[in-house]
């Protein structure tokens, strides 16, 4: 299909051709309902093949069924061209140097009002054009590593990102920001926490829950918070920087191994699980909430260990699960399985033979909890002990997604299951903590008078 008819299929396509009009034609269209004037827009590939889309002079789009059309006359032609305004990002020798690595998704963007297309802004000049405040904090350089949606991030991208971080650290940047889609940001944050160790500088992951083309977007503020953290904070860890409350008040810095996306659409979707976040950040200050973080250093002694075994799976247990789920993974050559078990870490008895078989095939099986909060505790019930005898290893309070990427990373390093176990159970970056603080589990319930009182007083 030629671009002149972008998105149009039969039978509409013939109607356009017969009348000698195409996409971007300004037309007067006679129909059985009267005359319609406007600009023919491209048709979405997923929309039906019955309608012609017109942009009216008042800015609205409408669809007219092709079967109503009597004739169309072209009175003009106006093709849209997109260009992002660039302004030179100011350089200030006195400011820290921050590198922004792009993985896909849009951190900042501008909007094409004619088509609604969102055009990503990514070069320092483009970013300066849309979020000029960034220049208050740092000198910015950017590099687009790849352009994939968050859900398409995988081992290949993780490894490349980790290697790119290593190179930047060697080059001497003062902080790194990674732009990332939010869906799998916590997977990437966790795996980078393992692949990049002993970083002397902050590594800050950031994204947005509301696209940056809308005035209420959280993108600009998240980016400002992330850049400030990368430039100024003394936290040399892999962190996720996203909205704390839904209000435009402050961001939270979450440790990469303890963070999880907890709501499909809220701005404040990222939460630290079973612990408290590292810090709060706003335009003016970074307020640490704890002191046990790794400090910024001036050396460049980072360890990059970017390996990953792809034959690892995560199994979310449900009542009535059959052993063939585990069997099929084993039969397909999987080397590691993370189970998200019920309660303290359980699966039903019929699965036991499959677990036994997995062990016989040298598959590493680890247990996490689907409650997300709390520890795996397999001694409390007889069933837990039985499972441990079958080789299932409890992973304390590691989050299921974190355990998954850690197991892939561990199996990427060695075939020796004892070594794998040692790697898995040795905390590297807070993925296992010795104690869960009392305020690490806060899911308040609405309706309770004191909670309502809190909501009335605290914007969130």
């Amino acid at each position, binding site marked *: 299909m030629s671009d002149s008819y972008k998105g149009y299929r039969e039978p509409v396509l013939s109607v356009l051709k017969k009348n000698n009009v195409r996409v971007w034609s300004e037309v007067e269209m006679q129909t059985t309902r009267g005359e319609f004037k406007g600009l023919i827009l491209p048709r979405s590939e997923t929309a039906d093949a019955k*309608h012609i889309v017109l942009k009216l002079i008042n800015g*609205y*789009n409408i669809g007219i069924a092709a079967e109503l059309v009597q004739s169309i006359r072209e009175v003009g032609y106006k093709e849209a061209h997109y260009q992002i305004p660039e302004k030179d990002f100011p350089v200030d020798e006195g400011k820290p140097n921050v590198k922004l690595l792009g993985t896909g998704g849009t951190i900042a963007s501008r*909007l094409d009002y004619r088509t609604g297309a969102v055009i990503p802004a990514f070069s320092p000049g483009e970013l300066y054009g849309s979020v000029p405040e960034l220049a208050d904090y740092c000198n910015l350089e950017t590099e687009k590593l790849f352009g994939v949606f968050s859900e398409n991030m995988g081992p290949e991208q993780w490894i490349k990102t980790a290697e790119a971080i290593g190179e930047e650290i060697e080059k001497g940047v003062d902080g790194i920001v990674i732009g990332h889609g939010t869906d799998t940001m916590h997977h990437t944050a966790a795996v980078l926490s393992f692949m990049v160790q002993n970083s002397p500088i902050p590594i800050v992951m950031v994204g947005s829950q509301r696209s940056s083309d809308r*005035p*209420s977007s959280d993108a600009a503020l998240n980016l400002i918070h992330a850049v400030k953290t990368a430039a100024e904070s003394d936290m040399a860890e892999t962190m996720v920087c996203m909205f704390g409350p839904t209000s435009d008040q402050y961001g939270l810095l979450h440790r990469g191994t303890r963070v999880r996306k907890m709501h499909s659409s809220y701005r404040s979707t990222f939460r630290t699980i079973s612990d408290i976040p590292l810090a709060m950040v706003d335009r003016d200050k970074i307020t640490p909430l704890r002191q046990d973080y790794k400090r910024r250093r001036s050396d460049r002694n980072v360890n990059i260990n970017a390996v990953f075994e792809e034959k690892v799976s995560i199994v979310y247990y449900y009542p009535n699960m059959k052993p063939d789920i585990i069997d099929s993974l084993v039969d397909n050559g999987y080397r590691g399985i993370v189970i998200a078990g019920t309660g303290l870490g359980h699966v039903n008895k019929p699965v036991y033979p499959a677990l036994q078989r997995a062990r016989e095939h040298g598959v590493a099986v680890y247990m996490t909890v689907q409650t997300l909060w709390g520890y795996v505790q397999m001694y409390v019930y007889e069933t837990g002990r039985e499972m441990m005898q079958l080789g299932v290893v409890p992973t304390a309070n590691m989050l299921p997604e974190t355990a998954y990427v850690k197991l892939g990373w561990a199996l990427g390093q060695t075939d020796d299951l004892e070594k794998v176990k040692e790697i898995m159970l040795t905390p590297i970056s807070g993925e296992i903590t010795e104690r869960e603080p009392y305020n690490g589990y806060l899911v308040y319930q609405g309706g309770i008078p004191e909670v309502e009182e809190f909501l*009335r007083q605290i914007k969130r």
Partner: protein
Amino acid sequence: MTLSGLLKPFEEMTPEDYAEIGLRSGLEVHQQLLTDRKLFCRCPAGLYNTKEYDAEILRHMRPTLSELGEYDGTALMEFKTRKEIIYRINHQSVCTYEMDDTPPFEINQQALDIALQLAMVMNYKLVSEIHIARKQYLDGSIPTGFQRTTIVGIDGWLPYKGRKIGLVQLGLEEDSCREVSDIGHERIYITDRLGMPITEVVTEPVMRTPQEVADVCNIIRYVSRSTGRVRTGLGAAREDVNVSIAGGTRIEIKGVHRIKLIPRLIYHEAQRQYSLLKIRDELRRRGITPDTFQYEWVDVTSYLMHTTWEPIQRAIHKRQEMVACVNLKGFLGILSYPTQTGTVFSKEISDRVRVIACLTRQPNILTSESTEVTIGNVVWNRIRKAVRAQANDALILVWGSSQDVKTAIDEIAIRAREATLDCPVPSETRQALDDGTNGFERILPGPERMYPDTDLPPLEITPQRIENLAEDVPEQMWVREDRYREWGVPEHLLVPIASSMQAELFESLVKTFNRLSPVRIARLMFEKTVAWRREGLDTSRLTEAVWQTLFTHANTHPPLVEAAETLLETFLKSDGTVDLATQIHAFLLPSIDEATVKDLLQQELAVERPYTSPAAKHHFIMGNVMKQCRGKIAGAVVNQLLNEYLS
């Protein structure tokens, strides 16, 4: 400068006068629809809880880049204001959708059906597929920063004075928040109305006088109501009025709640534009153009340390603020030039300072042309020296935090320079004030603020759906009016009935109870009822069932019609203790026969009274007898018997 820049007084303006200044005016009429739920989520519609709120959410609106890579005019302005927007939310009327934390749900089909039917009533061409658009609003009145809106029809029309008034489009969109306050850098909104389905009817600017605009506005509201599917009551319908004169600019006056106010609003806006054109001419005469325009400013706080004029004294000593003086070169007399009744040009500047620099405490500026007693001549003279003012310059003092004052100085210069432009009327939205004048609200957004909503796919309106809706579409109001006229309904009741939510009930009652006069039914339902409501009686108790009961009995017992008024009034005043049916039965039982009437008449005739004429005698006796037998026998019978006696 003389006052030649003023139009004739409002009352004296003729259609010819308006034609001469090139008045053009159009309307955007917003009407809430009567649906159960909101437009893009499942929150209940029409649930207002003005004071109670459960939580507050804080947001900022950030401008997005427009096609040319520059921030849109409004966008930039709102960003300059650095407003904190606070939303007060009530759990019952608002969910996470309105707060922009959940994507939209499918559009409310009930609302879409009503909008399509309204479009049919107003002769629009219907679209075959709706596309949801986002219309940017950076004032925070919608938490997303845009309004989801779509159009269901274009090019409609309504009849008016033998002409067709063209309707550009009929939009279906979500309603916005209601502003609670806007003080300094904080604007507060209540969110209960947010997301309610409303239609927007946009007329072409073809009305010739301010009164015509009001007339057409009334027609649109009546026609909408006549469908019986829209909300009524305070705030359920709101108008924006667009006004321009030759050489001026299209100005949008927002939030007109009362149609009565429209003519004066238009007159005052025409006057303002007329004055701004005159001011431009005067500035040109003095050689001041956009290129030669000059201003200077100086921090004059130190000169005002000892002033006793309270606004500045408090600013300096209580709030530790600064005072700046802006010298507008060659502007002598311009600041005090009248622009609307009781308003001068400096109000244009004060308004901008209030909105854009967030200096909301009034007064927020003081000009060298003020005639009130303020800071005294000695101080003024020192300030004049400090800013090197010459005799033909005009000075403006402005005070506040140093950051806000900086914004204010820029804005004062921007607004003053705008007065010298070829078109000296800046594109703005202005707010309607109760005295018929208007004040600056925001810079008018450009057409670039519309873009497609990527959250929702286009939705086909099938021919079948249109056919089904067409069968159920309420009759056009003007067709109804013609029929009522034939029924003999008095002229002044035609529109109130035809546009009423009860029009269909009225017609079915007239048809069912064919022995009753339509005029009687009309007067009871639409004249007496209004009078009772004005008296403060709860006329909502006059339900369909009540009318049915009344007219069912009246249809077989004609005398009841004459007593209906008394019966209904007693019923309304009884606070629910008297059941209408019981009342009717009690009334119907003791009917009076002709013999009894004759006795009553004879008794009356026997009394000697000094009647002034035979007619007076007839009138008096008739009245006395009817008091005793009204509703129990037809008045016509009594009249005939009395005539027999008198002749």
